[in-house]
């Protein structure tokens, strides 16, 4: 179980290898990589800058990860979130979950992404091709997605 916030790119294969190293009890490893898209509401996106709340971010990510570990039989998990200025095609976030069972790995990764989106203190600012710079508005659909897990018996 680990969380990290960093401006540097992350290495998917390296992270997964470290998490799996020497283990033969894992049956399923799920990774989610969120990346910067070149399009924002029909406008061409030039760059995206991620601001965060140092200290609180790590605490929230760790809390969300602990919650997932309590709900599912996870053998290991990892959250890496980037900050700073990113361009289309760059990675933003990596979530890795490993379990003996496939359903647990899938559901926990999905859960981590939903909660990360609604509770981790990150804010995205977009630079569009027409020169506009604006803060991304939170999506109601993210709140709805996170709501799926409320009171779910596990």
């Amino acid at each position, binding site marked *: 179980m680990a969380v990290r916030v960093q401006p540097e790119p992350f290495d998917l294969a390296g992270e997964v290898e470290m998490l799996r190293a020497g283990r033969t009890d894992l049956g399923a490893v799920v990774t989610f990589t969120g990346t910067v898209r070149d399009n924002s509401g029909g406008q061409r996106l030039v760059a995206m800058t991620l601001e965060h709340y140092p200290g609180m971010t790590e*605490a929230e990510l760790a809390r969300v990860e602990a919650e997932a570990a309590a709900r599912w039989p996870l053998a290991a998990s990892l959250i890496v979130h980037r900050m700073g200025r990113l361009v289309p095609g760059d990675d933003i*976030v990596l979530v890795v979950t490993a379990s003996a069972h496939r359903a647990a790995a899938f559901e926990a990764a999905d859960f981590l992404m939903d909660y990360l989106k609604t509770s*981790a*203190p*990150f804010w995205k600012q977009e630079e569009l091709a027409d020169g506009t710079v604006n803060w991304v508005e939170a999506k109601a659909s*993210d709140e709805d997605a996170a709501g799926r897990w409320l009171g779910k018996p596990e």
Partner: protein
Amino acid sequence: MTVTLRYFAWVREKVGRAEELLTVPPAVTTVEELMNWLKTQGPEYERAFERAAVIRAAIDQTHVKPGAAIAGAREIAFFPPVTGG
């Protein structure tokens, strides 16, 4: 009480600073009251907290609701809904 206030994203931009140490009058006891009081402290706060209903808060790096008591807080943060991930 004296408390560190921190602002993020467009709240930070509108207030014009990321962090400050403020002395809050004793009558101000909740996060919501703190936002209302801040609005009276100058045009930059008035602008920043104009849409107070959409602003989220954290006390000592934990999300809180507007009704949360601020007594004992070392650090109170205000920010728009988060958009990470």
